[in-house]
């Protein structure tokens, strides 16, 4: 702790229009340490990494490298300053062979080869075209390419995410040794097991601010969860739902039954039920397989195993139309994915009506108008600029994506983060609408990246980590700390006892032993 930091960033801020992605982030990395960067979804981790490596400029803040102020304006400048990132997506150009890719960045070949062998790939032919190399190996090559230029600070973003166990082990070993040789590594991961095995300290971000720097000692998970959640640590009680909001009595047969569903390597063995009249929440960190789950249920991709049953009947979806016929409609979080932006509100809402071949004929305009108008009224869409959807505000656009399926009277809505990036008022309206929909005996599967939404909307919460369902909570138990712990794959044992979170010292021994004993999904 006595030596000067290799990298010292303070007061870093970044705004996108009116939205502050980073407000006051700081990060200080000492020579020879492996430093974890942590934070919930949207806390600003990736923005900070992009600023440090020169991919985007900051609006404010000071970055010192070895004590000197540096203004890193481009990834090339970042390289020269000794900062090198390895991102989640492979960065080799697919149509070039490995050697040409190395030349492109001026990477020395022999050290690269040595590192590749070191990382557990003995038989790489550097004349192979990058496109033909499996994803896991590509990620290792990215790492080797970064290591070969001996950077002072290496930034690893979810490095082990796509790796099989043997490669992941080698990678972690190499990262560990990197620290021993006086250089530093910034390690971004959602896996507590890796972080506790590898890292010396962790910087925790929340809402664009650095809220704490902690030493990694046994039991520190609780402290980190607490930091990520901030002051909202007190157990929140579910507001009693009025009779109208209460879920309709569940019938014996589930509306939707998912059994052992698998999608590639991203989703393993997921099973749950969804009943009529229920809003079931799905909570997961980014990239834990929730995208694949929703895509499979929506008919966008085919699962590689398992079964989906609708009303007790097995269902095979090969196109979204199959899912829609079964009464499952997908509302994506990204509005640009769901809307024809140059068309009117009316046409966008009526789009599913014309989808089937038999509805290609003349449109019954009056009927359509009635349905559209009632859906617009129900969602209170501001129709002043209804000529083109792209002129609506984000919240109103999001309402249009939902209104479409309200107008179509769909039985089950699959809402994927429908409140992302919209104002508070509209969020409230969407919560209310989803409760109403459930009150009418329909069902909703609701993925959200904002944990506080769970208590407002859901009856039950399904938590996914590493492609598996790690826990299912009744809403009464699903307070934010419990959800956050589960989302990070920590065991449920201590979830009822909020005292642990309030006072980490008394619980360190217990939670250390529990996190050492196998955390679900932690082994890749």
């Amino acid at each position, binding site marked *: 702790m006595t030596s000067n930091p290799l990298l010292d960033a303070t007061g870093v801020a970044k705004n996108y229009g009116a939205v502050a992605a980073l407000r006051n982030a700081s990060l200080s990395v000492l020579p020879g340490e492996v430093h974890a960067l942590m934070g919930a979804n949207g806390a600003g981790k990736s923005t900070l990494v992009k600023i440090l490596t020169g991919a985007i400029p900051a609006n404010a803040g000071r970055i010192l490298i070895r004590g000197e102020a540096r203004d890193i304006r481009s990834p090339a400048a970042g390289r020269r300053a000794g900062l090198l990132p390895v991102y989640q997506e492979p960065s080799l150009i697919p149509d070039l062979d490995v050697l040409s890719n190395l030349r492109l960045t001026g990477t020395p070949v022999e050290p690269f080869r040595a590192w590749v062998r070191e990382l557990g790939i003995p038989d790489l032919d550097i004349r192979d075209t990058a496109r033909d190399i499996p994803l896991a190996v590509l990620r290792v090559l990215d790492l080797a390419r970064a290591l070969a230029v001996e950077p002072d600070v290496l930034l690893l973003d979810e490095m082990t995410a796509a790796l099989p166990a043997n490669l992941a082990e080698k990678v972690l070993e190499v990262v560990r040794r990197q620290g021993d040789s006086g250089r530093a590594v910034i390690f971004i991961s959602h896996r507590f097991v890796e972080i506790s095995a590898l890292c010396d300290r962790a910087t925790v971000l929340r809402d664009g601010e650095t809220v704490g720097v902690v030493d990694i000692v046994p039991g520190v998970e609780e402290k980190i969860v607490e930091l990520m959640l901030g002051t909202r640590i007190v157990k929140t009680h579910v507001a009693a739902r009025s009779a109208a909001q209460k879920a309709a009595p569940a019938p014996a047969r589930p509306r939707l039954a998912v059994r052992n569903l698998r999608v590639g390597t991203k989703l393993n063995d997921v099973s749950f039920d969804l009943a009529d009249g229920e809003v079931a929440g799905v909570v997961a960190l980014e990239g834990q397989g929730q995208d694949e789950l929703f895509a499979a249920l929506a008919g966008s991709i085919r699962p590689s195993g398992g079964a989906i049953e609708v009303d007790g009947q097995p269902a095979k979806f090969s196109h979204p139309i199959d899912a829609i016929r079964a009464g499952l409609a997908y509302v994506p979080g990204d509005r640009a994915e769901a809307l024809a932006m140059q068309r009117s509100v009316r046409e966008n809402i009526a*789009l599913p009506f014309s989808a089937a071949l038999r509805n290609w004929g003349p449109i019954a305009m009056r009927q359509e108008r009635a349905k559209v108008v009632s859906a617009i009224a129900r969602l209170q869409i501001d129709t002043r*600029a209804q000529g083109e959807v792209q002129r609506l505000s984000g919240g109103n656009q999001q309402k249009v994506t939902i209104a479409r399926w309200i107008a179509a009277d769909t039985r089950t809505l699959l809402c994927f983060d429908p409140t992302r990036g919209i104002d508070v008022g509209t969020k409230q309206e969407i919560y209310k609408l989803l409760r109403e929909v459930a009150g009418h005996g329909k069902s909703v599967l609701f993925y959200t990246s904002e944990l506080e939404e769970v208590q407002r909307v859901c009856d039950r919460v399904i938590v996914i980590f590493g492609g598996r369902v790690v826990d299912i909570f009744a809403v009464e138990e699903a307070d934010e700390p419990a959800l956050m712990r589960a989302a990070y794959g920590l065991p449920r044992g201590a979830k009822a006892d909020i005292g642990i979170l309030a006072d980490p010292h008394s619980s360190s021994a217990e939670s250390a032993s529990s996190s050492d004993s196998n955390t679900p999904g932690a082994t890749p």
Partner: protein
Amino acid sequence: MSTTAISPQPVPFGRRVKRFMADRPLIPLIILLVILVVILQVLRPGIVNERWIANTIKFAIPLAILAGCQTMTMLTGGIDLSIGTVATMSAFIMATQIVNQDPAVAFALAMMPAVLIGLVNGIGVGVFRVHPLIMTLGTSLIGTGCLQVYQRTVIASGARIPDFLAWLGTGLTYGIPNALLLFVPLAALIVFTLSRTGFGRLLYAVGDNERATRLSGVQYWQVITALYVISSVLAGITGLLYIGLIKAPSLSLAEPLVLPSVAAAVIGGTSIFGGRGGYTGTIIGALILTVLTTLLTILQMPEGARRILFGLIVLFVTAAYLRIVEER
């Protein structure tokens, strides 16, 4: 953006005109058409009479129908370059088969390649995702080749233009071109299809955001296959009309109309990137191009200079029109 619509303060005249035109994109096109006709009248006093108007309409109609094919395919972000070949094929087959066959059989034979090429285009673009430009260019070349082979087999029997097609293509009733009997219902059908049917809605939606239509349950290949078949059939019908007008079957009869048909659709305000446009604008675009051709013909310039001028005017008109209509 949405706030500009409700701001109460007075807007400058220029902006008001601009907004007026942006809301009614047909107005500037009609103004341009009138200006061109006036220029023509000034250059050659007396040329604009009943006969000239009927003649202009007769020549504009085949272009307008082919431009309708382009409008519909361009709405989905595509293009159909095979329409020239399809029109030529149907015209040529009609003219040669009518010599020995019953008119109904000749008609069926003439439309066969149209349906076939449309189907191949649709499956290529919709199922195998070949780029429409390449797909339709390819089928167009294949069609031309087939036509050349076919020509050898009928070289002995000769060709004849059926009376009915000559009547439809060139005839006048009370000074009104008979071709309008075909064109008016056809144009009405296209306009109705685009604005009031499920299929028309899907063309716009698919061109605007294909992913969104997929999530709404639209099966892309169905829409695209139907679209290219319809486009091809329209082109086949145009070929029959055109042979009645030109009265000289050749192996490149309608080829020179292909690129003007794209230009007519673009001038008429249809975006080549999809999702935006309509058929009424295209019709006026076809009229503008036809009047422009007459205008350049009477200027008695050398052919090269005329083409240069034609190209420049098309570019200028399109750019100016987009500036007027787009509010960005």
